[in-house]
């Protein structure tokens, strides 16, 4: 009941935001702009999927932005070396998943706090991307790869389609499977999960690997969209992803959160950015507004929880 209410709260916020922008700007509610918004949201929304799993398990992943850069340049260099598209995509995904897995192993076997190990990975993956490319972007790809960002199936751009598939599968993973249930249990009470026979180490490692994987999916879209893989791409994206999850009602204390919430959270951030651009709000003011939204969302969440208990 309270879960449902909270989700409706964020959904209502999104709808109100849209209605207001529709009143204020004649350009907002056009089909081309709406497609535009969703497309702009896709990268952050996909990173936020893995982030949601991590936060639900009572962890944090600060390395997602750097993993985006790292798996992006791996993917790009494979493409430039003439590897077939599926192989290059697989290499990019593997790179992201591997970074995430290392995070997971450091946390479970190395017993490092998630904050520390992913902070380290943030720097290592970024540095690796810079070393690998010698700081230079890798650009210029074949049309079949760029289709992943510029193509359309029906009226839907491919990135939106990819985001939809990622969300559908991940939602099922989180809400219907053993893996998802263990994610909640580990976040809610790791000790109890362990004593109930959950292989906490294995599952935690998998959760961080999954987060690396979704970052790599986002890297594919980002690289195709800019027709370039930059070693400095994804700078500070971890904060946007955390914000999306938190606006969507995921508790940083763990054990709570849904992907529908995260999707709405990511859309709120995307719509807000888009709307502020359409309205010609200065970039400084935009930061204040976006920051206020994040704080307000969490404040509302805390108020609701306090009232529920």
């Amino acid at each position, binding site marked *: 009941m309270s879960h449902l*209410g909270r989700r409706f*709260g964020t959904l*209502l916020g999104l709808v*109100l*935001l849209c209605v*207001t922008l529709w009143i*204020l*700007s*004649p*350009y907002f509610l*056009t089909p*081309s*702009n709406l497609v*535009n918004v969703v497309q*702009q949201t896709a*990268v952050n929304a996909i990173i936020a999927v893995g982030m949601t799993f991590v936060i639900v398990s009572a962890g944090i992943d600060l390395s997602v932005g750097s993993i985006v850069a790292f798996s992006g340049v791996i993917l790009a260099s494979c493409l430039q070396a003439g590897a077939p598209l599926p192989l290059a995509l697989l290499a990019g995904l593997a790179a992201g998943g591997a970074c995430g897995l290392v995070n997971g192993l450091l946390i479970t076997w190395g017993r490092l706090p998630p904050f520390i190990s992913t902070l380290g990975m943030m720097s290592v993956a970024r540095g690796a991307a*810079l070393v690998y*490319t*010698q*700081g*230079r*972007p890798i*650009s*210029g790809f074949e049309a079949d790869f760029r289709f992943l*960002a*510029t193509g359309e199936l029906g009226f839907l751009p491919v990135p939106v389609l990819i985001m939809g598939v990622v969300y559908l599968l991940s939602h099922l993973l989180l809400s219907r499977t053993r893996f998802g249930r263990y994610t909640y249990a580990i976040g809610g009470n790791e000790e109890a999960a362990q004593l109930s026979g959950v292989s906490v180490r294995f599952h935690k490692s998998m959760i961080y690997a999954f987060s690396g994987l979704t970052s790599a999916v986002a890297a594919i879209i*980002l690289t195709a*969209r*800019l*027709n*370039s893989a*930059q070693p*400095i*791409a994804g*700078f*500070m994206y971890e904060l946007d992803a955390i914000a999306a999850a938190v606006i969507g009602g995921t508790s940083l204390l763990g054990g709570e959160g849904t992907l529908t919430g995260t999707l709405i959270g990511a859309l709120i951030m995307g719509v807000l*950015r*888009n*709307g*502020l*651009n*359409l*309205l*010609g*709000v*200065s*970039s*400084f*003011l*935009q*930061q204040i*507004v976006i920051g*206020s*939204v994040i704080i*307000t969302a969490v*404040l*509302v969440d805390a*108020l*609701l929880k306090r*009232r529920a208990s």
Partner: protein
Amino acid sequence: MKRRDIWLTLLALALGAAGCHRGEPADSGKPRVALVLKTLNNPFFIEMQRGAREAADRLGVDLVVQAAERELDVEKQMQIIENLIQTRVDALCVTPSGSKEIIPAILKANRAGIPVLILDTKVDASAEQEGARFDTFIGSDNYQGGRLAGQFILEQLGGKAKVAILEGIPGHETGDNRLRGFRDAIAGAPGVEIVASQPANWERDQGFNVFQNILEAHPEVDTLFACSDLMALGALEAIAAAGRTGEIRIIGFDALAEARQAIAEGTMLASIAQFSDEMGRLAVENALRRIRGEEIPSSIPVRIELITKEQVDTR
């Protein structure tokens, strides 16, 4: 119900903010020109904005200025351009955050039939193959600027120097060209040696840190070429902190007001002046000509000069 109240309050806040800064409606009859900068926390671009704003006021142009929060955020710049295309501006002036990464955004503007004027940073040559068209490039020749700095060392400083270089973000056309120009100018000069060359990513605090480290590793350094004044000013502080003010000759780039003052005081030796306010002015003027259907040249050079104590004092 309380929840909704809070959301409403929030929206009111956002809209209040938006309301104050809202652009004019599209059908005011004035031509609308968008200026997309790399960032607005760098004096170089603030000057550019000022020049553009003055020209816009003079010519009756409705000017929209937008910038990403971070200079290197190519994705956010792309989003801004996409969103501006949605508002159907009449012309788009852009300082590309990435010379290759800007190409998909130019393509989108082309598709929407909006003229594109590129400022300051050149677009990669591959744009042509991709079919991306832009109307003009307005900027100074950074390579030439780098050469000016190199020649200054050879001619004015007796051709003897142990040089440290602070680079911009690797892979950026602007910084790469300045660096190349500088290196080409001093190549083959027997007395000039580059002992260290490190990126400080255009930032003042990184300029401080990186140069502090260079000083530790290479105390013999006597000359610094920084690819931007911000990094030079950061390095200046590092030199002061090391108690070596005045011992190291600093040549910067951009001739910011603060750098000019340092040159006047003698703590900095020279800087290469780019006239970013002039770029802004030329951008708005040429955008207007283009909107009116006039021809504009495909490349509009902006002057570039070496500034030393002499020039600063005579102003």
